[in-house]
Structures are given as C-alpha cells and as structure tokens.
C-alpha cells in the first residue's frame, strides 16, 4: 500500500464484511493514494474517506460500532468537514435508519431513512444491472441534466428528508441514486463497476477539497 506523507490520502474503511478488491483495484488503476483500514488513527490522518459496503445495514453498523469508528467518522465529517463518499450499503449507512434492520441507528450524517424498493416493471428485486441515471444537480464532475449508465445491485434505497440533496435519480424519478450535502457524498450504484463514468466520479471525489 502506498503512503504519501503530508499529501492527500484516501482511507477506505474496511468493515471486514465485504469484498473490497473492486474498489481497491479502481483506486490503484486511477493512481490514487489510499490505505485500507479500520483504525481510527488512519481515518483521522486521511484527507478523504470512502465507505464501501455490501451486506445488511445491521451488519454494517455493528461492524462500525465494534471497531469504534462511529464517533471518529462523525467528528471527521461533521466537524472537520472531510469529504466522505458512501458506496452502496456505505451510502445507506450515512442515513438514520433502515427498514432492512429495524431498531438500529445509522451514522446519521444525512437526515432520512433507508426503505425497501417498491415493485416496478422496470426492474426485479434485487435491482441488478445497468440503468440510465439522470443528474438532477452538478455532481462530482458531471453537470445537471447529464445522463450516465451506472451499475446497481440493491434491494433498499435512501429516502433523504431534504429532497434537494438528491443529485442523481433513476429514469422513473423515484430512486435517489446519489446524494450530496456539503462534504457528504453517497452513491447507491457501484462506481468501481461502472466503467468510465464511475471511474470519473471516483477521480473527481479524490480532488474534492477540505
């Protein structure tokens, strides 16, 4: 793992429940400096935080609690304003609660809940595959009204209280596919599996300033 002292460094938070290799391969390919860690100290030292994750909401939160990362993440993001991006389950963990695991609180960095995907003719559940996604705001190097195809695998989605934080929406205009509030970013799709459009988002995230 490469480390650059004094420079920018992304910490990829390792929940220990999911396979990180795709995210790490993408960061390596893009030539970004990163470390993989579940240590508070690394998160404090880093300039950017990526919270990836596959698994259930309850499992994800229980790992963050066991590793003692809940408070440090809140502090770094809310007080020190470090850019964080949650990917897939990682995005869901940014919110307050989830229908997937009732009674467990999320990180609460964003106001809103995670709810079950409604049935639709457009997809089956889990909703898997490439879907056209519409930018409703400027977001990580893309402009409002741009469209791009991203790769999704999910059964739940985020329902932010403030609808204005939704930055990418599905073609039916129902599912928040990406959100941004100040330095807090989330994407429901997998940028690391979304070819050029996804890699472009990750590159742009790494260039977000404190």
């Amino acid at each position: 793992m490469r480390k650059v002292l004094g420079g920018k460094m992304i910490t990829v938070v390792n929940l220990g429940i999911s396979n990180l290799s795709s995210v790490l391969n993408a960061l390596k390919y893009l030539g970004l400096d990163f470390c993989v860690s579940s240590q508070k100290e690394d998160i404090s030292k880093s300039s950017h935080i990526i919270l990836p994750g596959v698994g259930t909401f309850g499992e994800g939160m229980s790992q963050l609690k066991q590793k003692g990362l809940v408070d440090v993440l809140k502090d770094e993001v809310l007080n020190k304003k470090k850019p964080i991006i949650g990917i897939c389950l990682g995005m869901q963990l940014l919110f307050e609660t989830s229908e997937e695991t009732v009674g467990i609180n999320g990180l609460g960095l964003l106001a809103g809940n995670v709810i079950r995907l409604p049935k639709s003719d457009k997809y089956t559940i889990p909703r898997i595959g490439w879907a056209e996604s519409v930018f409703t705001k400027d977001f990580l190097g893309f402009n409002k009204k741009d469209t791009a195809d991203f790769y999704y695998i999910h059964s739940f989605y985020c329902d932010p209280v403030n609808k204005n934080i939704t930055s990418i929406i599905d073609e039916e205009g129902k599912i928040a596919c990406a959100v941004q509030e100040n330095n807090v970013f989330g994407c429901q799709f997998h940028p690391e599996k979304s070819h050029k459009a996804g890699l472009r988002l990750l590159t742009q995230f790494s260039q977000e300033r404190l």
Partner: protein
Amino acid sequence: MRKRLIPCIFLKNGLLIRSEEFKTHQIIGNALSEVSRYNDWAVDEIIYIDISTEEKYDLRRDDMKVKDDFKTKYDLVREISKVCFVPLGFGGGIRTIDDIKNILNNGADKVVLNTILFLDDTFLPEAAGIFGNQALVACVDYREDNFVYHTHGAVNSQIKVLDWCLYLEKRGIGEIILNNINKDGMATGYDIKLIKEVVDKTNVPIVALSGAGDYYDFVDCFEEANPSAVAAGNIFHFKEHSYWHAKKLCLKENIDMRKD
C-alpha cells in the same frame, strides 16, 4: 435495466481458446494480454469460463513476469479484475463453497456453476445463503435433444432444459446462461425458440449463449426471445472492433442498451 451484450471468454490451461461443439479447442491467445483490451471495449460485463480439465496454467509466455505467480484459477481472476471495471463473472471447475469465496475475494462479482449443481443438491441453497443469489449464475449446457448435459458436455443428466431451469430458480440461482452445445462455434444463430420458452416461463435473468454468426443474430435474439443478455465468444475474437460494431447495431435497432 438495460439489456446486456456480454463477451464470453473460454480458457483452457490459462490460454484463450475458440470452441466448437465442445470438441475442437483452438488456441487463439493469451488470457492476460487480452484482458485490458476487453476493458477498453466498454463491455457491459465479462464472463470467463475455464474449461481446463486439469489444474495447469501455462500461458506459454515465459517473457511475462507474472508467470511464476500464476498457479491457480484464483491468480487468473485476480489479474483479470485489476483492469476490469465492469461486472466480472468467472466459472469452471467450482466444487466447493471455498472455491466461490476465493473467486469472489479475488475480484469477481459472480461465479458460474454447472457440474456441481448435479453432484450436490444442497450446494446451491447453501451458496445462495452465504453469497446471495445475485452472485450465482448457472450455465446450462444442453443439446438438440433438449436434455441438459454436464461434465464438459459429456454426461446426459436426463433432465429437460426447462425443468432444470425452473428447479434452479426455485433453489436460488441468480441468473441462467443457456448454452446449446450443438450450436457452440457454429455461427448459425441463437436457439431462439428454446430461449424464448425459458424466458417466458422463469423469473430469473436469462443469458443467451452460442450461435452468434453475425451482429444481426444479437438483434434477432433480443427481439424474438427477449433475454436479459446475449453472450458470445468467437465472434468477438475474430472480427475487428466487433464489440463496438455489435453494440452500435443493437442500439440502431432500438435495443435498450448502455451507450457509453
């Protein structure tokens, strides 16, 4: 969700091969040197199937540095995933839960299962419980007699194609690849009638494989049988910019696909 067009890459002992009716295996290249080319094509997904009958990986390229570290299929998956930023499926010779774990941990998103599904009836539900059904793909090899075959197409299971697909769906498969052995490498078009029947009667995504001879075969298959994806092997190896041309034609014919 968009319809997908998937290059399906067959490997034998670490080498890329072209297959015909599961019998003729013509070596056409080196697995590693081709990988980044596929990524450049902006494919929707890639499926690798390792049809080696022995655990031997000789790239016949002693000049390539990675050779010494290249001992198992897991090494192969790891190298492929380093430059693959679209969903990656890998199959061939999977017999245990640990095999699946190793393949996924080395960077694949899905595993393709076949023979083990006949050998161990409890395997699929167990794997689905651990990895989720989205990670599990079945390759259903069948012949014109409508029976499903396994063990490199050598053993007749005496099970009809549709019955087998319905059974797999019930047991938790995430996706099914339909592969007509008699059409493998023949370039005579997809087995549309049977693909349509399975698509109509199951609720899992179906991937059509074997038979593509020209790009209109993809369009015909989507229009007439409506699978979630069409896959092909040989056609993408022997024609210049074949993936790009195929995609362009599908889009022109209004198949709902990723443009990139």
